[in-house]
């Protein structure tokens, strides 16, 4: 690991100022991804600004009936939070579907959102990778990509975003609160993450020095019935092949509203907007779910070895929506 300077911040303004004073600073949350990437040689900051001591470790109800989750809240605390389990079970389930008990005890909300892809080429410094080393090429496109993207990929990158938590937050329309050199701003999910285009080195729309301080979940009463289902290559402690976060609002046999987001299929947590539009106002039946899912997957562009994800994801979506009836 390359040497670096460590500084512990006590407030957001101080963290941002410290960050800006170094050429290659990074913020440190729980470290479960970043420390590993530093050890692998994928990340080599000259300064780590530890933001786990900032006063953002609470989950609070908002006046509008939603929740404000501090960026330093640990994944295990968020998954066990009574208000989250009651009003947004999809979020608790997504968190518990990810990683291990030990990792969830360290990992923070902000860090979870900003974790990097587990594409094997990105994590191996002996291989080219446009995300790690812009312009070096993407071996995944013709190589090992059976678990990579089917939506929104580009000639330069076919990586997927690895977070489960972010998929649930994208479905719930979470709003990310950011502090930074240009002042505070809010970013609605799924808009935090970006498609790779020809700049896959950028995972998100955050500018250098910007720091996530909170994630706000808007009130969404029908999310009290919501669900996360994850398919992976082993029963536990693995990244998603396909994951589905869904909430369904049905009245008189008709879908009034719905939220569906997918994990393991794109460079971003993929909000299935075409599916949602197709399903709103339709009869709440298996047939409608199939039609809506197929509308979404009409825009899929699977690679040589991952076309299996299309029927798999469609079937998981239909199954989850049927469970929510």
């Amino acid at each position, binding site marked *: 690991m390359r040497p670096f300077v*460590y500084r512990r911040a006590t407030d957001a303004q101080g963290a941002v100022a410290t960050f800006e004073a170094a050429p290659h600073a990074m913020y440190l949350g729980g470290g479960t991804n970043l420390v590993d990437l530093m050890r692998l040689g994928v990340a080599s900051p000259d300064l*780590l600004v*530890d933001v786990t001591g900032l006063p953002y470790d609470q989950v609070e109800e908002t006046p509008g009936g939603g929740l404000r989750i501090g960026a330093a809240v640990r994944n295990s605390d968020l998954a066990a939070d009574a208000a989250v389990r009651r009003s947004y079970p999809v979020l608790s389930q997504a968190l518990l579907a990810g990683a291990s008990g*030990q990792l969830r005890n360290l990992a923070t909300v902000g860090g979870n959102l900003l974790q990097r892809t587990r594409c094997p080429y990105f994590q191996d410094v002996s291989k080219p990778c446009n995300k790690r080393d812009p312009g070096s090429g993407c071996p995944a496109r013709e190589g090992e990509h059976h678990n990579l993207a089917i939506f929104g990929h580009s000639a330069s990158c076919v990586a997927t975003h690895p977070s489960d938590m972010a998929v649930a937050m994208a479905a719930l329309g979470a709003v990310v609160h950011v502090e930074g050199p240009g002042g505070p701003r809010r970013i609605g999910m799924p808009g935090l993450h970006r498609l790779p285009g020809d700049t896959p080195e950028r995972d998100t729309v955050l500018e250098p020095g910007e720091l996530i301080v909170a994630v706000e979940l808007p009130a969404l009463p029908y999310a009290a019935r919501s669900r996360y289902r994850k398919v992976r290559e082993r029963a*536990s*402690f693995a990244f998603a092949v396909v994951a589905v976060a869904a909430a369904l609002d049905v009245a008189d046999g008709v879908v009034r509203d719905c939220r569906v987001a997918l994990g393991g299929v794109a460079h971003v947590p993929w909000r299935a907007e075409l599916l949602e539009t197709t399903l709103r106002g339709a009869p709440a039946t298996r047939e409608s779910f199939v039609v809506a899912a197929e509308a979404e997957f009409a825009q899929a562009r699977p690679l040589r070895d991952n076309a299996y994800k299309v029927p798999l994801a469609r079937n998981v979506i239909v199954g989850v929506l049927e469970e929510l009836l």
Partner: protein
Amino acid sequence: MEAIEIVLTVNGDERRLAVDTRASLLDVLRERLGLTGAKKGCDHGQCGACTVLLDGRRVNSCLALAVAHQGAEVITVEGLADGDDLHPVQRAFIEEDGFQCGYCTPGQLCSAVGMLDELKQGWPSAVTGDDDDLGDEPSDDEIRERMNGNLCRCGAYAGILAAIKEASR
């Protein structure tokens, strides 16, 4: 190289030392404090052999930078027993043959202790049903899911499962 002075309370003893910013908590425990119970298995947070209790919670000490845990209270496998009296989880591992080569065992033990405490606090897992009472003896599926971060290459899982079940009573 930058070194920073930190204080850790390790198994009840206050330890003050200057550490390289790059040092993991695992390296500090093993190389600086002579506590070689926690093991370096994968060094990537995937195997769980380095599991210790950090401020009462189980964590992968290989991914925790020591400088980021100034003032923390750490319990390693060496600190589980009360003098010559083994921790109930340690006794159950012996009783139920919860190991073969023993390399993963310190991590399994610390993880099991942390996990049983999480159960006691009512934390759900991915396999917990809406109507499950976590005050009951945990099911095999609950224990397996909650111990997913600890690998055993000898495959002593049957004994580990029995031991944790025994210790949970």
